[in-house]
C-alpha cells in the first residue's frame, strides 16, 4: 500500500516539474498556459492520491481521505475555468501568437464578421 502511494507521489512531482520546464521553454503565452496550468493539474491530483495512500494506517480515526478527495474534486472543477478565463483575457489583450503558429480560425472568423471580437463585458 505504501509503495503504491510513493510511486504515485513520485509520478506527480515529476509531472509538476515537467510543467515547470514547459513554463520556461515555451515560446508564447498560449502554449505556456497549456503546459503550465494543465500538466500541473494531473501532477497535483496524482500527488494527492499518493499521499492519501501513504496515510492508510490511520484512515479510521482521522479524516485524511475525505480532505484529499475534496482537494482533488476542487482542483478538477476550478482549474479549467481559471485557465480558460486567463487565456480569453490574453486574447482580448491582443498578445500576438508565436511565429510557429500554423492556423488561426478565430482571427479569420472575426475578420469575416461571423462573430464579434471578445473584449470588455
Amino acid at each position, binding site marked *: 500500500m505504501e509503495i503504491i502511494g510513493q510511486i504515485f507521489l513520485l509520478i506527480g512531482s515529476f509531472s509538476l516539474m515537467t510543467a515547470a520546464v514547459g513554463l520556461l521553454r515555451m515560446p508564447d503565452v498560449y502554449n505556456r498556459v497549456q503546459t503550465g496550468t494543465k*500538466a500541473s493539474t494531473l501532477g497535483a491530483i496524482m500527488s494527492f492520491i499518493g499521499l492519501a495512500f501513504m496515510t492508510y494506517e490511520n484512515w479510521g480515526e482521522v479524516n485524511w481521505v475525505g480532505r484529499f478527495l475534496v482537494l482533488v474534486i476542487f482542483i478538477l472543477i476550478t482549474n479549467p475555468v481559471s485557465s480558460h478565463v486567463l487565456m480569453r483575457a490574453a486574447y482580448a489583450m491582443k498578445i500576438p501568437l508565436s511565429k510557429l503558429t500554423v492556423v488561426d480560425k478565430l482571427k479569420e472568423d472575426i475578420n469575416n464578421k461571423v462573430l464579434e471580437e471578445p473584449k470588455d463585458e
Partner: protein
Amino acid sequence: MKTKNIFISFLVLLIGWFLLTWTLDMKSVLIGIGLTGMLAILFCGSCTIFSEIKLTPKAFAYTFIYLIVFMGELVKANIDVTRRVLSPSLPINPGIVKVETRLKSKMARLILANSITLTPGTFTLEVHDDAFYIHWIDVKHAEEAQATEDLVRKFEKILEEMYG
C-alpha cells in the same frame, strides 16, 4: 423539473458534508441532512443547472464509462505533452482550429468544454453558438470536419447517451 434540481443539489451537498466530517455518528448525520436540505430548498430552486441530469441506471453506467475514458485520455495526453516538452528540439505546431458540436443541453456542453480544456494539448478558447474555437498545440488537421472527428467525437458519443 424544479424538485429534481433541488433533490440533486441536496445529494451533492450531503456528499460534501460526509467528505468533510467523515463520521457516521447519528447526531452529525441528522444535522447534516437538516442543514443541506434547508440550503437546497432555499437557494437551489432558481438555478436550474442540475435539472438536465437523467436519473436512470443507464446514465449512471455511462457516467462511469465517461470517467474511465476521460482518465485514460488525460494520462495519454500528458505523456504526449511530456515527450514534447522534454525533447530538445521542441516539436510544437500550435494553432487555433474550429470544431462543431451536436450537443444541445447546457450541462453536457459545460462538461465537454471542461474535458477539452483539462486534456493537455487542447484548450477551449471561445464558444459561439455551436462552434468551439480550440487552441491545439500540435495541429494535425486544419479543416473543421477532420478536427471535429479527432477532438470532440470520443467524448461526445458518451455525453449524448448521458444527456440525450
